[in-house]
């Protein structure tokens, strides 16, 4: 963060949501403009110079860790890679915790449900070989590998989860990130849990709930397309169902 405020520019009028699960409200701050200033710089400046009790979350500051996502002027963004001059309107910024996740304090959300849903949809690799067998050879050009690769660069920032109206309507919905991960694994030819994973994403909180509104694809900072991944899962599940290749006891989330 640059520590050289530009005194020739009008300070930014920043509204920051402050509060706990019990409730909260917006608090106004004035932050000096700086060159190449990011939204994370603004939040950090407030904490260092105006109110040390402001809670927020960040780690890498270079768009790799997925920790610092917040709502900025109503849109979910990775704040460390979002420049103030690209998103500021009339010299104003409104910064809130991510939508669709419970707040812990101020701008820090509880990400538990987001990651629990990755586990619920078996969003992890399950191999079938041991160290005594040779390493698999994968062609990076095979159609299946290309599909898997297109969905792998997720940084777990939950921006897609915050932008998803289906999550907002149905709190049990697995969400774009978990389903995108499942799709990537379903196309990994080394993975051996395909059948089980397919039944998990086919339940009443799974891929068929997606309305293809594409909020996730619009706001994904890594320009992934979870909507396309979910559409792929829908086709895969439908084919498996017709051919009888799916377990019928997939986990049910909605009572």
């Amino acid at each position, binding site marked *: 963060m640059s520590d050289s405020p530009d005194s020739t520019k009008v300070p930014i009028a920043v509204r920051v949501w402050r509060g706990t699960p019990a409730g909260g409200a917006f608090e106004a701050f004035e932050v000096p403009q700086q060159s190449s200033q990011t939204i994370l710089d603004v939040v950090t400046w407030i904490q260092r110079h105006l109110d040390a009790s402001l809670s927020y979350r960040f780690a890498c500051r270079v768009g790799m860790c997925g920790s610092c996502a917040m709502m900025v002027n109503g849109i979910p963004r990775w704040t460390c890679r979002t420049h103030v001059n690209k998103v500021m309107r009339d010299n104003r910024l409104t910064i809130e915790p991510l939508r669709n996740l419970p707040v812990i304090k101020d701008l820090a959300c509880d990400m538990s449900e987001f990651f629990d849903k990755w586990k619920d949809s078996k969003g992890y690799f399950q191999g079938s070989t041991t160290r005594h067998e040779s390493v698999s050879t994968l062609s990076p050009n095979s159609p299946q590998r290309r599909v898997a690769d297109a969905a792998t660069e997720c940084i777990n920032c939950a921006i897609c989860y915050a932008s998803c109206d*289906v999550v907002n*309507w149905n709190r049990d919905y697995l969400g774009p990130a978990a389903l995108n991960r499942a799709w990537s694994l379903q196309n990994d030819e080394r993975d051996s849990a395909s059948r089980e994973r397919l039944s998990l994403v086919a339940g*009443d909180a*799974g891929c*068929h*709930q997606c309305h293809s509104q594409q909020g996730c694809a619009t706001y994904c900072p890594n320009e992934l397309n979870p909507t396309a991944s979910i559409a792929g899962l829908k086709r895969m599940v*439908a084919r498996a*169902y017709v051919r009888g290749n799916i377990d*019928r006891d*997939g986990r049910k989330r909605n009572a």
Partner: protein
Amino acid sequence: MCVATLIAMGVNAMLEVRLYLAQRASAAIMAPLVLIHLGVMIYAIQGGIDAAEILERTRGSLFWGVNYGLFVVAVSVHASIGLRNILREWLAVRGTSLSLISWIFFAGLLTAGLRAVAAVVIA
């Protein structure tokens, strides 16, 4: 359909897949039928049209009976699945109530639609 069957359907994890397939299959059936309906309507209305002329074409016609009968079945399936989604997402209706309302809506549409088809086809 008895209540026990409805409840059993409610807890079947594959229900979503079946509904997904049923909604797409019913859409695929409706699309050409709508085109046939619109095409004939545009053709028939050229010289003006009245109820007697319509009934003359439809009364005793196996083709129009099957055409509109199939359309009514497809609409009933398609619309009741769509309504089911809306009830779940917007009004948080779940479980047996969700299945019951959807089935009642399906039965209502089917009954009203088939009665209408019978009225214009059966002489």
